[in-house]
């Protein structure tokens, strides 16, 4: 009798815990029996139904807090992860294990499932490229990309694991030596890598948003992106059917190790063991494969038919943090299409005090002052065009910079000086200033069209200008495709008009970032993944 009642009670408890939270990286509270507090990669969110079931079966429920791979590594290395978590769960432990301070804090890992990072293209495109009848290697893929025979979207390697795996994979494969990458080998293949990344026309800070943006672009004839580089599991669940291209010379695979921290209590240790056993049982493995399209981690469960290529060659992964960090830095400063970034910044009277100070700090952080791991990669990159457009009652003159590839520091210092001298006074003419930004971009795009272009709009309150959001919408609709397709990333701050900011993000294919419950620096850093 009692046993039959239990699942119902558990289900109720789970429902109660299911409320939406604004900040995905929120801490999850103190240790409680029967709960495993897990710092995780956001792509694990789709495992919730499996974990709900696991809670019913084992009495162990998982409380997630989401973060990026590199930021997560930093939290583990600094010991802050130990303060609020029992375990970490990212798509891979490889980067974590390369950071000595993080590695020594990792306990028992349990690999739960796997998914390789591959290229997905529409069937017609695959046929056009002649890849429907034979398997191709990364070198052929890079060559076709260099000739712009297809374009693709990929996540930011410093913010998200799928982009990171793709970068490592293509670099390892192209280096041709077959062994693990070091700095000299990366330099040697830089030209080919540059070809490959010249076809990347969409970037994102997370795998989820990348897929959404791709769906939107697929519907918008103006600025299409042919395919995606992403996890096999994400590509298999795409609403736009994609044909998966598995490079014959190998892939980098995520293996999702649920990893106990060495600091975990014996209760948490036991919970981890129980949950691991459950997740690796044949039935659950099968359900994970069926519902999330990831490959099972135990040999007893055979792969089903949707995995077109079963036996995949795994490419070697660099053996040191310096090699990986070097590869990411090279990607930003030399390999990828350079960015063009316009910051439309509210410097009205309401910004006086802490707020303008926060804004100054956020910008200064992007000039190399932020020495954290994640901060290092989010600075303004070599070749990037950065324009600051402060406004109050009207737009002030735009301040334009271009960061040199080889010696970026002097220009970064100039940006820092400008940021530090920003002052707050006057009114808030948001939309006329934003409109003015397009004049700057039009000029820059005419001179040099082949860049990732985006706008950050930061304002702390209501518009006081004569043009309102409806005027801006009309203006935006009239723009030519190359300007209309530029995403706007509004930052919610102070008393921002949330609905209007949503509207602006939506019309431009951008995304709203919230800086009301965290620092502007954190929001600006997160946006870097999308620029």
């Amino acid at each position, binding site marked *: 009798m009692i046993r039959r009642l239990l699942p119902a009670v558990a289900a109720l408890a789970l429902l109660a815990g299911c409320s939406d939270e604004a900040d995905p990286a929120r801490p999850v509270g103190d240790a409680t029996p029967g709960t495993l507090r897990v710092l995780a990669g956001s792509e694990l969110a789709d495992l919730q139904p499996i974990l709900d079931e696991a809670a019913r*079966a*084992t009495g162990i429920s998982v409380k997630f807090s989401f973060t990026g791979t590199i930021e997560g590594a930093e939290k583990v290395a600094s010991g802050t992860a130990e303060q609020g978590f029992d375990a970490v769960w990212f798509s891979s432990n*490889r980067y974590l*294990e*390369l950071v000595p301070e993080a*590695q020594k804090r990792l306990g028992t*890992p349990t*690999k739960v499932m*796997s998914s390789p990072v591959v290229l997905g293209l529409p069937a017609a495109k695959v046929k056009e490229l002649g890849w429907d009848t034979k398997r191709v*290697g990364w070198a052929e893929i890079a060559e076709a990309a260099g000739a712009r025979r297809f374009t693709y979207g990929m996540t930011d390697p410093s913010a998200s694991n799928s982009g990171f795996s793709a970068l490592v994979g293509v670099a390892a*494969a192209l280096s*041709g*030596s*077959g*062994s*693990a*990458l070091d700095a000299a080998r990366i330099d040697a293949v830089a030209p080919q890598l540059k070809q490959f990344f010249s076809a990347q026309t969409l970037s994102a800070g997370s795998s989820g948003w990348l897929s959404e943006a791709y769906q939107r672009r697929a519907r918008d004839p103006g600025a299409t992106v042919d395919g995606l580089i992403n996890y096999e599991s994400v590509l298999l669940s795409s609403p736009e059917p994609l044909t998966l291209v598995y490079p014959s*010379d*190998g892939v980098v*695979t995520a*293996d999702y190790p649920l990893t106990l921290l060495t600091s975990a209590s014996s209760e948490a240790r036991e919970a981890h063991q129980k949950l691991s056993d*459950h997740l690796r*049982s044949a*039935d*659950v493995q099968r359900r994970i494969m069926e519902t999330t399209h990831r490959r*099972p*981690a*135990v*040999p*007893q469960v055979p792969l089903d038919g949707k995995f077109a290529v*079963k*036996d*995949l*060659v*795994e*490419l*070697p*992964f*660099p*053996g*040191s943090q310096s090699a990986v960090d070097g590869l990411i830095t090279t990607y930003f400063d030399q390999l990828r299409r350079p960015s063009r970034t316009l910051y439309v910044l509210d410097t009205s009277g309401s910004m006086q005090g802490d707020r303008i100070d926060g804004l100054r700090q956020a910008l200064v952080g992007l000039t190399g002052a932020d020495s954290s791991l994640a901060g290092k990669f989010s600075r303004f990159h070599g070749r990037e065009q950065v324009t600051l457009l402060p406004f109050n009652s009207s737009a002030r003159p735009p301040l334009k910079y271009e960061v040199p590839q080889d010696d970026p520091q002097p220009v970064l210092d100039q940006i820092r000086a400008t940021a530090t001298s920003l002052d707050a006074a006057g009114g808030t003419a948001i939309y006329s200033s934003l409109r003015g930004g397009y004049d700057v971009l039009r000029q820059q795009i005419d001179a040099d069209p082949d860049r990732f272009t985006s706008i950050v709009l930061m304002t702390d309150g209501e518009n006081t200008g004569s043009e309102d959001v409806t005027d801006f919408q009309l203006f935006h609709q009239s723009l030519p495709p190359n300007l209309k397709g530029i995403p706007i990333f509004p930052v919610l701050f102070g008393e921002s008009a949330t609905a209007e900011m949503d509207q602006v993000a939506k019309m431009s294919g951008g995304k709203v970032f919230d800086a009301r419950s965290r620092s502007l620096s954190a929001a600006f850093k997160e946006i870097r993944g999308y620029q």
Partner: protein
Amino acid sequence: MTKDLVLDKVFRQRWTVKRALGIGLAVVLLVGVVTAIVLEQGEQAQLQTVRGVIGSEKLAFFADQRVKDVFARHGVEVEVDPAGSRQIVTATDLTPYDFAFPSSAPAAEKIQRDRKAARTYAPFSSPMVIATFDPVVDLLTKAGVVRSGPGYPTFDVQAYLELAAKGTRWDQLPGNTAYPARKNLLVTTTDPRDSNSAAMYLAITSFVANGGVVSSPDAEGKVLPAVSKLFLDQGYTQSSTEGPFEDYLSAGMGKTPLVLAYEAQFADRVVRGDSSVRPDMKLLYPAPTVLSKHTLVPLREAGDRVGQLLQSDAELGRLAATFGFRTADPKHFNDIVREKNLPVPQTIVDVVEPPAHETLERMLEAIAKQY
């Protein structure tokens, strides 16, 4: 299904208690868990708790209920903390432990010297092997790396070192259509900075590169370039031996065509009969190989008792063999080989000694510095 399993586990735990306390009490036990906990504590009070720090390869053995039962019959309850064998020597505070049980003889010798232990016990061992797949066996036979050997297939370490020195890729092997991967022909190991199995691999490869056990700084200097490459060219490696072996079982040839493992890992899977070892999976014995000698160093009297039991108790010997370990009394292992039809030779002829602990440590340090 899973719930049944959990219930089954609970039931089994209760069953043990029940047996110890008699049928009359069992009726009470079935009534409430609280009662069970109280009684369990009562039972534990009669057992002497012995604490040990052990190489993680033996964790499953010590966690096994049948093993616990045998110890309990001798009045002992063994509590173990798993740790890397190198870590046990260099990093772990041994004060709280009654015994240390690393997975290699050099580590045990070092502990014995440091702690002035009177004796050690080596109740079981396992040779280092290379697990692979039929198509790779064929390829490497043609390449002269795999030989039919003395009744079992061997992996010629000298021939392998020559291929590795040239940075040979799989797709450069002549006539290779079975596994034309564009990556270096390398045995997948664990991280030499963390793991005992990688240290054992270094023992094997340094022996061959030097033409004998490395025992002088000169010899260390001579072999380091060649043996470092075997690790560094792999790039990232995992820190626990379970990692690459699990990849071998689940991700197959594409990811891990050749993996260094303990024979016991493979044998354990076959004994379990969980169908994780497929017919095309094959074991190769490096020629020469080394034994991972699981050696118990008693740190206190109570630890010595555990060593004695492991060495002499037939039931524990039989159980160790079911986990794939070669036992001090070969009968136990041979019985399991026959009973489960394990694809392993009764005796391995080409076995060499690992270098002394200090030499091994210095070479590992030197490799670590190059990452």
